[in-house]
């Protein structure tokens, strides 16, 4: 006889491709080192919640030698900014992040050329970080505000542009062969569940999520993406179900279409693995979509570990879990009777 509440664990691995599939993806950006040691970066996307604007400010700050809060982002407008294309396909960090890095390097090179000449030092001795610019091996140092002013007095506005591409090839129409992405990420999640064998209810108590992101630009942001992906995966695993009756939905609001809320949330332990991408100037890959992939199968495998039944049709509602348990008991009874 099974105890009322049974616990179990399951694991699932996953892989995912970064940026648009089986095509030549590309994105452009503009950058300018501006008065006061500030910076302007222009790109065609805006925030959909993943944290791209903060990430771009970090990248621009790092590349230009200013602080993230000094960066003004001009975004989101087809008439005012270069092509960035879509906010999806786990491509924002990879495509826009890298194009902004290249644009900033271009702008920085123009500033450095002027300052090197001004100081009469070699360009490759110049470093800039956190609002200051200095020449290595010397005591020459100035603020970025002064550096931009010097550059402009010499008649140069330090502007730059960048274009980044991720080369994929189309798939052969017969055997599907091709190289759809230049960067792949891998992930593994372990789920721990408790199943109530009387009600059929499954609670996910813990998720351990290990994901390769190439390089974490903002680790807290990466965790946020993993946590959000896990909970969407949990929703699909256990409760979400868009239902139609002859094309008419019967789940037309959140009273009928059930979403995870605060009491459904497992403790989530994120483990960030960094396998840098050699083709990316930043070394970063991405995490938006991959975080969701292994959650549902890890939960189904954990349910099996807990109560010995396998749910192969999502979602694993209490009704399905109870029906599977009943079927299992019946087949065991039949086997015992036969013995």
């Amino acid at each position, binding site marked *: 006889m099974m105890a009322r509440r049974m616990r179990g664990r399951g694991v699932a691995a996953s892989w995912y491709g970064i940026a648009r599939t089986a095509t030549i993806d590309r994105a452009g950006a503009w950058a300018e080192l501006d008065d006061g040691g500030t910076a302007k970066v222009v790109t065609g996307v805006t925030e959909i919640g993943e944290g791209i604007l903060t990430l771009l400010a970090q990248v621009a700050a790092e590349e230009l030698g200013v602080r993230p809060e000094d960066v003004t982002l001009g975004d989101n407008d087809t008439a005012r900014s270069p092509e960035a294309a879509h*906010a999806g396909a786990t491509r924002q960090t990879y495509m826009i992040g890298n194009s902004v890095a290249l644009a900033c390097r271009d702008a920085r090179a123009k500033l450095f050329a002027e300052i090197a000449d001004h100081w009469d030092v070699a360009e490759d001795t110049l470093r800039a970080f956190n609002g200051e610019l200095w020449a290595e091996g010397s005591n020459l140092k100035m603020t970025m505000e002064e550096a931009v002013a010097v550059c402009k007095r010499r008649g140069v506005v330090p502007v730059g542009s960048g274009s980044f591409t991720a080369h994929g090839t189309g798939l052969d129409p017969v055997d599907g062969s091709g190289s759809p992405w230049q960067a792949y990420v891998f992930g593994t999640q*372990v789920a721990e569940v408790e199943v109530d064998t009387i009600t059929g209810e499954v609670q996910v108590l813990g998720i351990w999520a290990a994901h390769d992101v190439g390089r974490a*630009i903002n680790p807290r942001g990466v965790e946020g993406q993993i946590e959000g992906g896990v909970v969407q995966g949990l929703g699909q695993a256990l409760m979400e179900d868009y239902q139609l009756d002859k094309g008419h939905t019967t789940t037309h609001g959140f009273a009928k279409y059930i979403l995870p809320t605060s009491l459904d949330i497992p403790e989530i332990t994120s483990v960030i693995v960094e396998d840098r991408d050699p083709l990316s100037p930043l070394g970063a890959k991405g995490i938006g*979509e991959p975080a969701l992939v292994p959650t549902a199968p890890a939960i189904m495998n954990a349910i099996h570990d807990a109560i010995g039944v396998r749910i192969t049709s999502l979602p694993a509602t209490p009704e399905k879990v109870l029906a599977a348990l009943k079927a299992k008991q019946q087949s065991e009874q039949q086997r015992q009777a036969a013995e």
Partner: protein
Amino acid sequence: MSDFEMELEVNGRKVRRRIEPGQRLLDFLRDDLNLTGTKEGCGAGECGTCSVFVDGKLVKSCLMPAAKAQGTKVETVEGLAKPGELTPVQRAFHKTGASQCGYCIPGMVMAATSALRENPDAGIDEIKERLGGNICRCTGYTKIFEAVELAREVIAGRLNPATLEADPAGESFIGNNVRRLDAPSKVSGRLRYAGDMVMPDMLHMQVLRSPHAHAKIRSIDTSAAEALDGVACVITCDDVPGEDGFGVFVHDQPVMARGKVRHVGEAVAAVAAEDIATARKALKLIRVDYEELPGLFDPEDAMQPGAPVIHDYAPDNIVKHIPVRKGDVEKGFAEADIIVEQTYETQQVEHAYLEPEAGIAYVDADDVVTVISPSQNITHHRHMLAHIIDRPINKVRFIMSPVGGGFGGKEDMIYQGMLALAAMKTHRPVKLVFTREESIIASAKRHPSRVTYRMGLKKNGRITAASFRMISDGGAYGMSTEGVMRKAAILSCGPYDIPNVQIDTYGVYTNNTPSGAFRTFGGMQAQFATESHLDICAEKLGLDPFEIRRINMMRDGAVTHTQQKLGSVSLARVLEAAEKASRWEAGPVGQRGPVRGDLGGEGTRQPCTLGSRIKSADGHNKEKVA
């Protein structure tokens, strides 16, 4: 205008206004007072984005008639702190990264503030309970819980307020937990999403949608609607000047139904009027003569020869078939010691972003047709709209407003075309905001799938062959189905080195709500089958689940199912990282039993049980909260 004059206090200021009877408190705050920090997510009291305080009690302002607020003190997210300042709760949300798209966040901040006002010492279980009426679709709630606990500690004086400041720069801004730049505008309700925007002389749009899954349109009579006072224009497919059709891959969807409707909820006509009520009244005056056609509701029925045809260009109802072949699958099965077969199903899933679709279109002084909306692909939308309205690309402009959650669901241009046409016809700004119900019936879903899996393995766990066949319901329009089928096929058999594979994915037209892009783009459906299947195989072979994955995993230089040679493969590293972090206790699938050391330890929460977890507050530091 009504003669009911209401007097109340809002964010500490006396307000006196004439209001419409029946107006919701939410509309009064947003439309009459321009306090758009309070958002509408569902209009049914289910999501909590519209939470405000009325006389100190947390209420959902979409459920409360404005007139009931007579004489009360109302506090909205804008009133929690002085302009330019943030409360400790808001600052804690900023610090922990608790806001992502931000649309649920004003409501979440109100609920969190309420939780700590009610019990400044609330523990994590009580905090979770008190946030239970607020839905967040982005964050997975974890950073929100962290924020509320952090705020609690700071307010109680157990943590230094400096904890809420930014981390030091260190040696690099890369790898630094720089606080989100957009968070202050989100936690304070200052950020304006498309539905919060207004323009002078703006019209309001409402859309007439199909009540039928599949029907021919014999005629549409808009004359009575056009004659209604306050209606500026009615548009149908006849107003499209260029090539009508949009879609992420195949342009099979007209801006509004052309000749027939293919799913319930499809746009048929739209009205732009001086106010929403007039636009809704006008919709009822549009006469559409439909002739119902037999509908297809299961992709396998749609694939049968002789099935009704949904799109003339695709007589077999197939949107896309993607085949992948590697090695010799029959030979691989012949070499196997066991062959394991199983079918898997996944359901249709709604994106459920908290921000329903919304937008404003106008024609600017330079004759540029401009659309502001939370579009996930302004570059592609600009191209498609230019063809649809027959204008040069530089006379079409898309502005991407802050997206209140997308997850792929805002890649389809399902309403921006109607807005542009109405703006062109009236030369006035036109605004449209979907209701939650409208968003659910008209927007794409995650593709449901049926996978038939066959895998051959040696006794030592090595996979010799796999055949994978997935049939997916694409619904009434192509949207992203082609790409979803491609990604599902490429990723299908997982990150495993399998010498012989035969993979087929089919996306099929039906008369169901269309399926489209949704976070993982087919990758989740396919790998759910693979990862479940591997465990079934491991059980039959007496293997630990990590072991069967390691035996077959791709390593550096592996060749994928599509015969791409990879460089570095990090799978071994992530397997080990998850195994270690979870303190995995090894053992064959199905044989590990309930008595073990790895259950219920660090990294798990307590299961929920019924009972009163909301303790009564002693209130000793109640006044310090916000």
